[in-house]
């Protein structure tokens, strides 16, 4: 701990609030990203099924999911915009020096996002008026736009991990930029695929989890069955793939960012036959307390033989590597992610066994309890993945080229603390509202379905979804249609 203190003593006072603010806004935004990136795909799969088999239940699910997409995409837009502000407000040194080298990734992302915003608007608002086929086809490029957006952001982050594509002049300024090699850095491929699959899995488990809860509560109609199986199958298929991708990215980190690997695996001295620690805590003197020690396993994981030499933290000076506390954080985040991933694999295998061998859904309530938690667990895993990547890179913002202390804004720390407090309050308000709105939508739909199931006529449509009904326009409005018939209510469109 005392090393942490001495290291922080030399750091500018505004560093801590700036890091806290960035961490908080990133972590909040990442909760929304899986649904933003992968929910359109899952919805389109359901939509396709509905059109193909002329299945009203599937179409209903797709419509409801798109209503959910609308609310969460809107909040994702604003939290994402805040992040682009923060590059300037918190890390002007990073952008001022390196923006020209790696900023282009964000350019790709901005345009992709533009496209995604357009397509999502057309998809969400096209249900009623566009021809079914046209509407579906216009939604089809959505996943591609989402993948392109992820490409831009991940290119930028991978560059921060393995910066290249420039030469430094005498004054230490990057010149002679090669954009191509600045985008396709060594860490880019592994990070990109690991991320995209993580988004797909997380969105799949999250959506399926909602219906798993319904299943546990005894709602086992076709609607719940379909709402569960389509996203869960998608996620389950990709879970083993993610395991392989995760293994390969860990090895890429071992080769390209040896010190980060040492931090995530708590390797103190460069050595062969290095043991693997599951959890445990690193102390500033290099000793490790707690955790489970597996002899030689770390070397085997890194290079397939116990004789593999693993670089340790002490291979670089103390102020060029994560502190003991930071290493412990990265290590815990990494191990948590791996544990969650392993549990999800078991769940996916269980599901696969029942579906492929017995041609039915699992019947055990324990399976559905697991499925209900899988969504939250995958979000936690995604957060842990980012913590591993970002904390493991400390103290560098650009690996081995710029420290975060050099990049941080010169604004007084007081202003930053106030901003942090303000942002926390605002975000709690927004995320709380978002959750409340989504739960409300779910409850209303459920009550609606229950009423319909017992054949009761539903009364006035209530204003429970983002879309409607149009608030009755006072004066000059035709008398409202009850909305009980099979057709739509001509709600509020004067």
């Amino acid at each position, binding site marked *: 701990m005392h090393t942490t203190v001495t290291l922080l003593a030399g750091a500018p006072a505004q560093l801590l609030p700036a890091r806290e603010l960035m961490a908080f806004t990133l972590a909040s935004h990442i909760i929304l990203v899986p649904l933003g990136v992968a929910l359109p795909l899952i919805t389109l799969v359901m939509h396709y099924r509905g059109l193909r088999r002329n299945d009203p239940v599937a179409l209903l699910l797709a419509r409801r999911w798109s209503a959910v997409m609308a609310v969460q995409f809107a909040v994702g837009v604003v939290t994402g915009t805040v992040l682009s502000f923060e590059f300037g*407000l918190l890390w002007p040194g990073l952008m*001022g020096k390196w923006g020209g080298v790696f900023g282009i990734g964000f350019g790709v992302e901005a345009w992709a996002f533009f496209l995604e915003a357009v397509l999502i608007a057309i998809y969400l608002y096209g249900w009623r008026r566009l021809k079914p086929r046209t509407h579906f086809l216009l939604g089809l490029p959505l996943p591609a736009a989402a993948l392109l957006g992820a490409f831009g952001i991940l290119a930028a982050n991978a560059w921060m991990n393995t910066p290249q594509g420039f030469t430094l002049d005498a004054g230490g300024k990057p010149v002679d*930029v090669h954009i191509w090699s600045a985008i396709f850095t060594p860490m880019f491929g592994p990070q990109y695929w690991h991320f995209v699959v993580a988004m797909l899995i997380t969105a799949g488990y999250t959506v399926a989890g909602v219906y798993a809860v319904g299943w546990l509560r005894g709602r086992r109609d076709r609607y719940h069955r379909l709402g569960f199986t389509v996203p869960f199958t998608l996620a389950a298929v990709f879970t083993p793939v993610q395991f392989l991708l995760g293994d390969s990215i860990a090895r890429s980190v071992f080769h390209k960012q040896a010190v980060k690997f040492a931090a995530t695996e708590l390797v103190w001295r460069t050595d062969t036959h290095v043991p693997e620690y599951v959890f445990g805590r690193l102390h500033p003197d290099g000793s490790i307390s707690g955790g489970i020690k597996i002899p030689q396993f770390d070397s085997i994981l890194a290079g397939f033989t116990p004789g593999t030499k693993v670089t340790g933290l002490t291979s670089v000076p103390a102020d060029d590597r994560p502190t003991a506390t930071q290493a412990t954080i990265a290590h815990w985040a990494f191990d948590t992610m791996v544990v969650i991933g392993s549990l999800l694999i078991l769940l996916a295998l269980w599901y696969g066994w029942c579906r492929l061998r017995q041609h039915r859904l699992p019947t055990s309530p324990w399976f559905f309890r697991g499925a209900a938690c899988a969504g939250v667990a995958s979000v936690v895993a995604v957060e842990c993945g980012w913590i591993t990547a970002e904390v493991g890179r400390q103290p560098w913002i650009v690996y081995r080229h710029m420290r975060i202390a050099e990049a941080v804004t010169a*604004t007084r720390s007081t202003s930053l603390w106030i901003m942090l407090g303000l942002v926390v309050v605002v975000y709690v308000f927004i995320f709380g509202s978002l959750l409340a709105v989504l739960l409300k939508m779910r409850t209303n739909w459920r009550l609606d379905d229950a009423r319909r199931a017992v054949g009761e006529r539903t009364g006035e449509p209530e204003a*429970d979804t983002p879309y409607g009904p149009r608030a009755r326009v006072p004066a000059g409005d035709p008398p409202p249609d009850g909305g009980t018939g099979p*057709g739509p209510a001509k709600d509020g469109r*004067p």
Partner: protein
Amino acid sequence: MIADVIAVVLLLAVAAYACAGGTDYGAGFWDLTAGGARRGARPRWLIDHAMAPVWEVNNVWLVFVFVIMWTGFPALFQTVFSAMWLPLALAAIGLVLRGAGFALRKPIRRIAGRRLYGAVFALSSLLTPFFLGAAVGGIASGRAVPGTEASAHAWANPTSILFGLIAIVATAFLGAVFLAGDAARYGAPDLVGYFRRRALGSVVALAVLAAVMLTVTRSDAPHVWHGLTHGVGLGLVILAGVCSLATGWLLLRRSGVWSRVTAVGVVAAAVIAWGAAQRPYLIPTSLTVAEGAGDPGSLRWTGLVTLVAVVLVCPAVAFLYWLDTHGELEPLSDTDLRRTEPARDDPTELN
């Protein structure tokens, strides 16, 4: 050379954000001034409907402005965000509250809740353009010299305050013109007149503020003042003036479509006039385009990415606006989200 091209691209992106995002902020302004829950119900209903499909798209322009800044002109980005820390931080918080207030107000049923979210949305629609305008004013008056630390003088000065006010009035003007057109589209004739009156009022206010600005900048931002009163800058100022007269005339003549075109012309010409007046500087008299330019390689790539994107995105955005103005985009209603056949299975139901 390439730096000049990218500087023009940056200016056009700022103009696009001023027009697209500005229309959005303006809708928020009229939401704020619509009156109580009962009196303001109809205008607010129209604002919700007109904005919903396009507001996210309109706001992506801002992200793009930042991206061009940090990729093409890293020194400019660093300087602006260091010197203008507070207004930009407040604008960021305003953006979040605005988007969230707008998105979350619709699903809420209770009038108190709708009031709260509506107020959050409307107030931040006022503050965000003000602070963004103030930041621009600080740049235009040359106060954001490279190396300036965050300080009040950079944005609490006559030019900044005035630019902030002009930003608010310009957005209100755009919003009113567009909403008047939307009201005609949604068949609400009473609202057409309502927003037309407000648009005409905004034109007058804008003209007054423009006149005040030309007197204030003369001493407070001499370089920009000189640019606005000579050569290309003067031409663009005159163009903006002609456009605003034309908008007023078209509003009186009740032409919905063309008044939108001229209204966008006013704001776009004004933004481009400011950019032209700053030549050859990114920040008047302390940072030229050539000095602030990043690596020529990245500038070329920025240009290329922009070009590819324009080819991809422009048709998409045009298509979205076309669908939106032709009434093809309609929100899902409750009925669609019930266990009934989707609406479009029975075209006779739609009229």
